[in-house]
C-alpha cells in the first residue's frame, strides 16, 4: 500500500502499535521541550528520547536519512552565516580577513539542535503512524469529520492534480499552443492551462461530493471503524503525565528566566 506524501513505514514494532495520540503527544512533548529548554538540552532529547524510540520502532535508518537530508544543508549554512556574521564575543579562528566568532557558532549549534529535535520528532511520528489512524483518533476525540476527510484526500489528490495538469498541457499543445519560448509567451500560455484545471476541478469536486453522500458520509448516528485503535489505561496515564511534565517544565523555565 502506498500513501502519497506520507513517510509512513509499516513495521512490526511496539512503537507502531501505540495509539496515535500517544505518539502525537510524544512528538509534541519533544518539540515543546526543545523550544523551551536551553541550548544543549535539545541534543540530549534527541539522543535520549528520539534515538531509542526510533530504534524501538525499527525506523532508525529512515529517520536519520530523512532528518539529515533536511537538517544538514540547513545546519551547514547556519553555521557559516552565524559564525561569520556574529558581531560580538571572542574569535574562534581567523582565516585571512575572515574571522569566525565563538558565540555565533554556539548559537548556530543550539539552533540546529532545536531544529533537529523538533524535525525528527515529527518525522518519527510520520514514520510510525498512519495518517488515517491519526485522523481517526482525532475524530474520535471531536475533530470534525470534514476536516479529517479534507486532510486525507489532499494527500491523494495532489498527485492526480499533477497528472491532470499534464493532460491539459498536452491537449492545449495539440491545439497549437507553444509552451516554450520567452516570458511573454509563457504568460500567455497560462490561461489555457490554468482555467481548465480550475473548472474541471470544480466539476470533480461536485461529483465527489455526490459520491461522498452516496457513501453515507452524512448518515446520522455513530460511525464505526475498520481500524481497531486500541487505547489502554497505561497509555492514557502516560499521555496525561507527559502533559503534566510539559507544564511543569514550562513553568519552571518561565520562573528561571524571570529570575535570571
Amino acid at each position, binding site marked *: 500500500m502506498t500513501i502519497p506524501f506520507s513517510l509512513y513505514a509499516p513495521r512490526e514494532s511496539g512503537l507502531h502499535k501505540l495509539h496515535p495520540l500517544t505518539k502525537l503527544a510524544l512528538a509534541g512533548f519533544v518539540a515543546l521541550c526543545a523550544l523551551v529548554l536551553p541550548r544543549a538540552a535539545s541534543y540530549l532529547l534527541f539522543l535520549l528520547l528520539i534515538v531509542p524510540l526510533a530504534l524501538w520502532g525499527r525506523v532508525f535508518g529512515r529517520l536519520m536519512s530523512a532528518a539529515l537530508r533536511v537538517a544538514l544543508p540547513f545546519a551547514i549554512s547556519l553555521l557559516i552565516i552565524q559564525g561569520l556574521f556574529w558581531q560580538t564575543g571572542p574569535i574562534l579562528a581567523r582565516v585571512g580577513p575572515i574571522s569566525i566568532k565563538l558565540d555565533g557558532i554556539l548559537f548556530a549549534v543550539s539552533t540546529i539542535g532545536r531544529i533537529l529535535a523538533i524535525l525528527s520528532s515529527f518525522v518519527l511520528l510520520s514514520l510510525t503512524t498512519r495518517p488515517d489512524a491519526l485522523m481517526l483518533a482525532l475524530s474520535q476525540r471531536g475533530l470534525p469529520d470534514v476536516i479529517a476527510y479534507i486532510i486525507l484526500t489532499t494527500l491523494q489528490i495532489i498527485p492526480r492534480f499533477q497528472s*491532470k495538469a499534464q*493532460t*491539459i498541457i*498536452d*491537449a*492545449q*499543445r*495539440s*491545439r*497549437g*499552443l*507553444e*509552451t*516554450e519560448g520567452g516570458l511573454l509567451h509563457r504568460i500567455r500560455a497560462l*490561461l*489555457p492551462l*490554468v*482555467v*481548465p484545471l480550475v*473548472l*474541471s476541478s470544480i*466539476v470533480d469536486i461536485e461529483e465527489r461530493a455526490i459520491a461522498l453522500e452516496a457513501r453515507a458520509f452524512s448518515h446520522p448516528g455513530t460511525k464505526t471503524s475498520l481500524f481497531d485503535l486500541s487505547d489502554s489505561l497505561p497509555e492514557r496515564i502516560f499521555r496525561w503525565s507527559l502533559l503534566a511534565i510539559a507544564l511543569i517544565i514550562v513553568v519552571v523555565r518561565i520562573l528561571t528566566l524571570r529570575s535570571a
Partner: protein
Amino acid sequence: MGESIRIEQVAFTYPTGIRALRGVSASISPGEAVAIVGENGAGKTTLARHLNGLLHPTSGHVLIGDWDTSKHTVAQLATRVSYSFQNPDDQIFERTVRAEVTFGPRNLGFSADEMESAVQDALSQVGLLSEIDHHPYDLQLSQRKLLTLAATLAMRTPIVILDEPTTGQDAPGVRRIAEIVEHLKAASHTLITITHDLDFAAEHFERVIVMAGGLIIADGPAHDVLAQESTLAAALVDPPQMVRLALALGFDSIPLTPEEFVLALKNKSGRSS
C-alpha cells in the same frame, strides 16, 4: 489534402517502466481512414500520442509527411495533425463556444476570414452553431465533447486523430459524428480513430489495426480484419454485430453493415433457391 504517416519500428517505454509499445510499424497513405482497436492498455492511445508528437519513441521513428516528430514541437506538428481528446473538460477554458473553437485556428496563424469560416463550418458540422455565444459549461457533457471535436475540425489539418469519438453520445450524436467522418474522408483528410465501438469502425473505416500487448497483431482492410474471429478474440475485442450474425448463420462473405448483410442474404438465398 492528407499527409502520409510512417511509423517505423516504434518502441516506447514510459518513465514508470511500462513498455507500452514493443516495436510497431505501419504506413498510412494520405486520405486513408484507419481505426485502431484493442482493449485498454494495448497501446492504442500511446501510439496515437506519437502521431502528433506528444510522445517521442524510445526507439524508432514517426514521420508525418517528411517531418520526423522528434525534431518538431507539438505546436509545430499541430499544423499537420490535430488530435481530439476524450475528455472535453481537460481543454475548455474560454468563455464562449466561439472563442473556444477559435483557439486552435488562431494558434495556427489563420487569417481573420479563415478563422471565421473555419469556426462557422466546424460548429455547424457538430450542430452547435446556435450555441456559438454560450458559455461552454452551459452545455451538457456530450455537447462539450462535440464542442472540442469542432475545435479540432476548425484547425483544418491534413491529419485528424479522433480518440473515442462516440463515447457517451446518443444515436443522433453518433450519426452526426458519422457524417463528420464521411465529410473528412470526402475531403481526403487522413483520418485515424481509436475506438471501442467496432460497429462504428466497421461502418466508416476502410482499414483496421488491431493492437494487443503493445504490438500490432492485425492490420488490413476492415472486411478482412474484422472477420478474423481469433485475432479479435486474442485482442479481447468483440467483433461487430453484423460479423457475429453472419458467422453464426454460416455466411461465406462477411458483411460489416446491415445493408451489406441484407445484400449478402439476398445473394445467399438467390443461390440456394
